[in-house]
């Protein structure tokens, strides 16, 4: 074996320029794949974070009627439920939200607003709105008749931090729910609808306005991994959820799940194309190597080398070539990854998915899975591409090959 590797290694360097060229070409392919995987993983991470964790949670709880009716009185009685969920070992965060629609403004200038009642510390753990503030601060932990407005709405109504604003809505008991709120912050959340017409307030303040004391519309639960929502669901259902509707984010928003799935599929296709091209390079190199050494291989066989040893020799050469490509690719890819992770890639404006505008600079994310997922298949493709040349070499008839050429 050691002998085989030594011979294969020397053979590789007999045509050092060709071997290096092939290894470089494949190294570049590896580097491109590594960089693309890092970028797509980064993008996927950003999407998963914004579209799944922050908007949908990993598991959602609703009143069974609410998702279809959206009627404000189809609520969850929050009594102790969220505390029970938070105490579960597999839960990293949970937030309770109450939604409402109201007229928001002052005497003459008002507009329809989407009100989101939240428990600030819980909500911030899930979606860091406080990092998206363009002015002011986020809501205080205790209900204090404060509101944080979406940037677009604040601009439309010419409101700024420190101003007071009235909300008025039809409460669920038929009365005219209203409240005077102080604007403490203005946020650019990246969510188109919320920036244009959203307002965040303390859940208790909104419960008062809507006459929905102690009620919320949804509870979003997150675990460490959005893809592991099914096991989280099983765990949450153990927390005495009663007749509430408990769903994974994939069940709650199939179109988001589909979109996230497409990312994986398109990446797989991209990698397959690059690897396909790379494998043709290996095939070509190894065929050339076998052809030009017909005489030599014939001699070796005449001297008693078995066909199996010939196959092993050619495959070892290909494997060494693959290894070399991987090393070159890893070095070059590592440099690209380093740039992507530290600097990121600027996508300019308009990086929007499903109503969410993303930070235009997407930073790469290097995972062990991503790196191994590129290097290992490439190595095996190198070896696989050499199978045919190896078999050709093994079938050579010693006499003919030594006489010919």
């Amino acid at each position, binding site marked *: 074996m050691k002998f085989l590797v030594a011979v294969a290694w020397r053979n590789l360097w007999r045509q050092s320029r060709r071997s290096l060229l092939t290894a470089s070409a494949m190294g570049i392919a590896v580097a491109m794949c590594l960089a693309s995987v890092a970028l797509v993983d980064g993008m996927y991470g950003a999407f998963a974070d914004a579209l799944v964790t922050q908007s949908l949670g990993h598991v959602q709880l609703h009143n069974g009627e609410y998702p279809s009716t959206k009627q404000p009185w189809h609520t969850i009685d929050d009594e102790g439920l969220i505390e029970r969920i938070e105490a579960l070992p597999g839960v990293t965060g949970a937030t309770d939200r109450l939604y409402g629609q109201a*007229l928001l403004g002052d005497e003459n200038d008002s507009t*329809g607003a989407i009100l989101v009642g939240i428990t600030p510390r819980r909500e911030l753990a899930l979606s860091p709105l406080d990092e998206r503030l363009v002015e002011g601060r986020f809501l205080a932990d205790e209900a204090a008749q404060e509101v944080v407005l979406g940037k677009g709405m604040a601009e439309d109504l010419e409101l700024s931090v420190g101003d007071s604003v*009235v909300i008025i809505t039809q409460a669920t*008991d038929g009365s005219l729910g209203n409240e*005077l709120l102080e604007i403490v912050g203005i946020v650019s959340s990246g969510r188109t609808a919320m920036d244009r017409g959203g307002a965040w307030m303390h859940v208790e303040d909104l419960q008062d306005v809507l006459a929905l004391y102690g009620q919320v519309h949804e509870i979003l639960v997150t675990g460490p991994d959005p893809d592991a929502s099914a096991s989280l669901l099983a765990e949450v259902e153990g927390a005495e959820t009663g007749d509430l509707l408990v769903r994974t984010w994939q069940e709650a928003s199939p179109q988001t799940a589909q979109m996230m799935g497409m990312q994986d599929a398109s990446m797989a296709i991209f990698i397959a194309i690059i690897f396909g091209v790379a494998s043709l390079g290996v095939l070509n190199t190894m065929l050339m190597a076998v052809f030009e050494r017909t005489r030599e291989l014939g001699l070796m066989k005449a001297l008693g080398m078995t066909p199996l040893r010939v196959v092993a020799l050619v495959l070892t050469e290909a494997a060494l070539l693959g290894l070399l490509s991987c090393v070159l690719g890893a070095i070059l890819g590592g440099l690209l990854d380093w740039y992507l992770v530290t600097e990121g890639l600027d996508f300019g404006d308009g990086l929007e998915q499903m109503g969410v505008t993303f930070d235009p600079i997407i930073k790469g994310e290097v995972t062990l899975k991503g790196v191994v997922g590129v290097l290992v298949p490439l190595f095996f493709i190198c070896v696989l591409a050499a199978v045919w040349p190896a078999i050709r070499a093994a079938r050579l008839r010693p006499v003919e090959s030594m006489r010919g050429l």
Partner: protein
Amino acid sequence: MMLIWLSVASADDAEIVRLLNLTDDIARGESSVATLTMEVKTARYERSVTMKAWSKGTDRSLVVIEEPAKEKGVATLKVGDDMWNYLPKVDRTMKVPAAMMGGSWMGSHVTNDDLVKGSRLSEDYTFTLVEQPQDGDARYVIELVPKPDAPVVWGKVQVVISEAEIPVSTEFYDEGGDLVRSMLYQDVKTIGGREMPSTFLVVPADAPEEYTKISYGDIQFDVDLPDSTFSLQALKQ
């Protein structure tokens, strides 16, 4: 257009207009001051609101809630097509934007639009008298179809008036011809010197268990009210 239409209107038409005006003018005078109770029953809540209302002509009115205590002082001012709500809890007045005019007023089955509408049925609709008392049923039934550009949401309206010329009901249909809601005029009695229905019952067709019932406790007509009664300043008091 209007002129041509008027010129061909027959004496019968004038008679129908007079009957329609009876419906428009229930509880309406040159001016009025009234106390009324509104009972609302929906699938989710029942509530009773007592209020005082002032009106002048067709385009000015002010309603102030007296009970329940939680909503005491909440007031609605209407001047022309505009409407404001005064909210004592926050001491602010909010104009009701056009987009919300179709919304429920104080949780009832009456919309903001219903309150603001000052125009007469005979102005917005073309009408046909489909039944007269001599037909045996002892009532007038008038069918109204909106004029092409009338600012109304209904596809058809049917007004029923008793032989004694007291309004009985008004039914509102959508453009597909389905009944949307009925308004029934009940408890005819003499209040404020007039014989008139003292209770208005609004029943939505899609939820017949629900209703809004407005009952007049007391009403005085042709009271001298200054225009300033219907101002934003007055709204706050």
